[in-house]
């Protein structure tokens, strides 16, 4: 073991003497520090801003004056998604999806105003985040540092001497690997710092440490690939060229190719498209604004029987409210069915995308990173579902007020004059039915189990690449 440490120390001495290495390491250190700092600051700001907005939206709702209840259904409410603490490292899909939704009766709106839509267009990546740097740039740094790790000894003729002294190829490779491992350990420091910071903001320690662990595995995969190339190939320019190609392939080409392939293979219709199909079905359900619609005849018979009344005027409750409530429930079933269908298709597109991790570890780490940070597509979908529940509950609660607290005759008469309109109102106290909404991340266990597949793929990558190193090192001859 001590010989391995000696070899590793010798590598460090050489690196510290190389201007290229020092320059590359410095640039990356500055970039890492700058992006971590900026992203963390932005995320903390956004977190408190969105929480404030959520509270403000609730207060605005509560402070509405006496009104006709159906007006509150259209007045609506907002749901905001604050970024989770680990978004400071991995903003994930946040920049691409909107982060707030307007909630109102009879409609499911989309999350609007994604950052990328308004962002300056210079091609390249959506955002420069610490996660991007770890996924793309650090492997490149490992390539620059390590492409000649082993073959340097071969080129300078020292390999023969070392082997003659009784060092085995495997021992030599272990020393070189140790050197690279110590570099990787040093590169983990900014991530560990961000992880500790996120724990201080309330992130679960398990999720944060799993994230650190995943990136460690990811960098080790690259370290092993680099070491293997430097053992197998005989010229440093060739080794560098091959490794750069592998990087180009794994980090740039395959992820985008996988996007094209999974969107071509699984067609997820847009919202307008599925809405149009839905509208055709909705027409069969009747219009919630019009209680005389034939589709409500059956409902009417049933309600009259329940209250033992002859006409809807005799009912102790407001028939228009019943209609509103009934059609909202029916429509929501339909909306949810289509929304679930759309989200299901998107989720299977993303699963297919994740499968490409088998040919590019960059895809796997991206997926693990977003999932553990709570900024993945599944979390966005959960936000959509939870805000939909919030929407449905408040609309139905207000409809219940309509049923119970507003006299039917006054309701029908509401447009006769301004005074009649004043009478067809309910007290502002009724708006208290709105639930408090605070979007929080999944439990860390859920996130981990969602990341398990991609994490497994990465571990397979690590085992495979380390085995290649050992097999190649065992065959090293003079």
């Amino acid at each position, binding site marked *: 073991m001590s010989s391995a440490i000696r070899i590793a120390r010798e590598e460090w001495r050489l690196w510290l003497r190389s201007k290229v290495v020092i320059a590359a390491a410095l640039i990356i250190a500055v970039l890492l520090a700058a992006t971590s700092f900026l992203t963390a600051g932005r995320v903390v700001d956004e977190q408190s801003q969105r929480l404030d907005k959520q509270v403000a939206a609730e207060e605005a709702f509560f402070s509405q004056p006496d009104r006709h209840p159906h007006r509150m259904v259209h007045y609506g409410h907002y749901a905001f998604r604050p970024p989770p603490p680990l978004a400071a490292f991995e903003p994930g899909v946040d920049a691409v999806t909107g982060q707030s939704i307007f909630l109102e009766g009879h409609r499911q709106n989309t999350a*609007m105003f994604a950052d990328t839509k308004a962002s*300056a267009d210079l*091609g390249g990546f959506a955002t420069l985040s610490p996660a991007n740097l770890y996924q793309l740039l650090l492997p490149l740094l490992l390539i620059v540092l390590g492409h000649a790790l082993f073959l340097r000894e071969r080129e300078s003729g020292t390999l023969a001497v070392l082997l003659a002294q009784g060092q085995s190829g495997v021992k030599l490779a272990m020393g070189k690997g140790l050197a690279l491992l110590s570099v990787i350990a040093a590169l983990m420091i900014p991530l560990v710092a961000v992880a500790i910071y996120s724990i201080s903001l309330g992130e679960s320690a398990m999720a944060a440490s799993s994230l650190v662990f995943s990136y460690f595995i990811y960098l080790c995969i690259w370290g092993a690939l680099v070491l293997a190339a430097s053992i197998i190939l005989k010229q440093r*320019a060739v080794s560098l060229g091959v490794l750069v190609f592998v990087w180009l392939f794994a980090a740039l080409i395959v992820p985008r190719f996988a*996007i094209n392939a999974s969107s071509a293979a699984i067609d*997820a219709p847009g919202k307008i498209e599925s809405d149009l199909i839905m509208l055709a079905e909705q027409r069969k359900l009747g219009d919630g604004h019009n209680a005389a619609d034939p589709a409500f005849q059956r409902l009417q018979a049933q309600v009259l029987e329940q209250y033992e009344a002859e006409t809807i005027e005799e009912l102790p409750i407001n028939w228009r409210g019943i209609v509103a409530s009934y059609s909202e429930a029916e429509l929501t079933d339909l909306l949810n069915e289509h929304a679930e269908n759309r989200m299901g298709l998107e989720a299977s597109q993303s699963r297919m995308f994740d499968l490409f991790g088998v040919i590019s570890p960059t895809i796997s780490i991206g997926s693990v990173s977003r999932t553990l940070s709570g900024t993945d597509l599944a979390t966005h979908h959960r936000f959509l579902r939870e805000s939909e529940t919030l929407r449905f509950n408040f609309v139905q609660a207000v409809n219940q007020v309509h049923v119970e607290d507003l006299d039917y005759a006054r309701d029908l008469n509401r447009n006769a004059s301004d005074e009649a309109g004043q009478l067809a109102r309910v007290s502002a106290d009724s708006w208290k039915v709105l639930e408090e909404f605070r979007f929080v991340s999944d439990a860390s266990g859920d996130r981990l189990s969602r990341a398990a597949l991609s994490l497994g793929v990465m571990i397979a990558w690590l085992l495979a690449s380390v085995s290649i190193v050992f097999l190649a090192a065992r065959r090293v001859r003079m």
Partner: protein
Amino acid sequence: MLSNLARETRFLAKDRGALFWLALALTLSVIAVSFGVAEVREQRSTIATLTKEDAADRQNALKTQEDWGGAAYYALHFTYAPPSDFAFAAMGQRDSSPWKHRIKMLALEGQIHEADTRNADFGLVGRFDFAFLAACVAPLLLILLLYDLRASERTARRHDLLVATAGSSSRLWFPRAFVRVAALALLLLIPLWIAAIMQGTSFVITAQASMILVGALLVWWVITELISRIDALPSILLTSMIGVWLALAILMPAISKAAIDANNPVPDGGEILLLQRETVNDAWDLPKDDTMLPFAALYPELSDHVQIDEGFEWKWYYAFQQMGDEKASPLSQQYRGARLARDRQAGLVSYLSPASFVERGFERLAGTDAASMIAYEDNVRNFHAGLRAFHYPLMFPEVPYDAALLNDLPIYDPNPSSHDPSP
């Protein structure tokens, strides 16, 4: 010269490393272009389906209407920006900005920001289109083709002999590099040209795109040429070249993007909606004149018809919908203006990064840049204004409802004459 080129072509034909990079370039180009063509076909068929479904849905909705207000409320109109005949090469902003809407005569600010975008993972990673290949990957392939021209001869200890035999170093290295750059450009461009012919892209656009790509490759050639004059190990040369590539193609765009965005804050989009919603909702509780008088000031020709007698009248309803738009308009204009300002600055900065320049150049030619997306939104706004201009003269003077007149409803025109949005 010609004999030099012929010699170097024969030399290239035996260089297996170089042939591998060139074959890779051709393969990637074929893949990028085919995916692009398939995506455009898919978008066109979506538009065709939606146009048909939309018309049927509108017919159905209008069948049962009995007044102008109901007709305007229940008729939705499909609006869209069709992909251009060059969009296959650069999907650009079509992936992050919506290019289709269904609009009705209610307040537009509540509708136009709806985002019918795709799977969020897709927007995050981006797509492998020709523009990305040309902007980011092609320079790297060029570097891999050129970095060891001199250095490999040095390593083989033939360098000085070759230079001495050739007479001048330019007669040796220039043809050798030229053959590689030309082969790379051709192999990238041939699939693009074939697809352009299939898609009916105009010759001018194809030629401009080819020039952008060739120009960018020349810039990268100069960069690699300058670096490769350094007398250093090929691996150090390659490291430096990749460093420059990384700086120009990845870091520069990302950092400038962050700086431009920080310098030109856009108003919070949520505020636009909030203002519009609050205005529309408040109007229900305000005296009717508070809505109708400012409305009459906007439409003097309708001012004889703005008296509201009943508790609810459609004219009043649409008037306060419009007042909601008017109230949110400054904020909305500011949002639009900031997007255009960001885009203009990005245009200037892109001269510093060949990769950004290529990406933006392709998007401009393909009509998928930010300006085109904003032009589409303007087009939707014009169409919506057309709906109001159609309905108001019927609704306000209370012209008796006649369903036949609805046959003259404005029809959305996806290709209006002027394209450039004014700042």
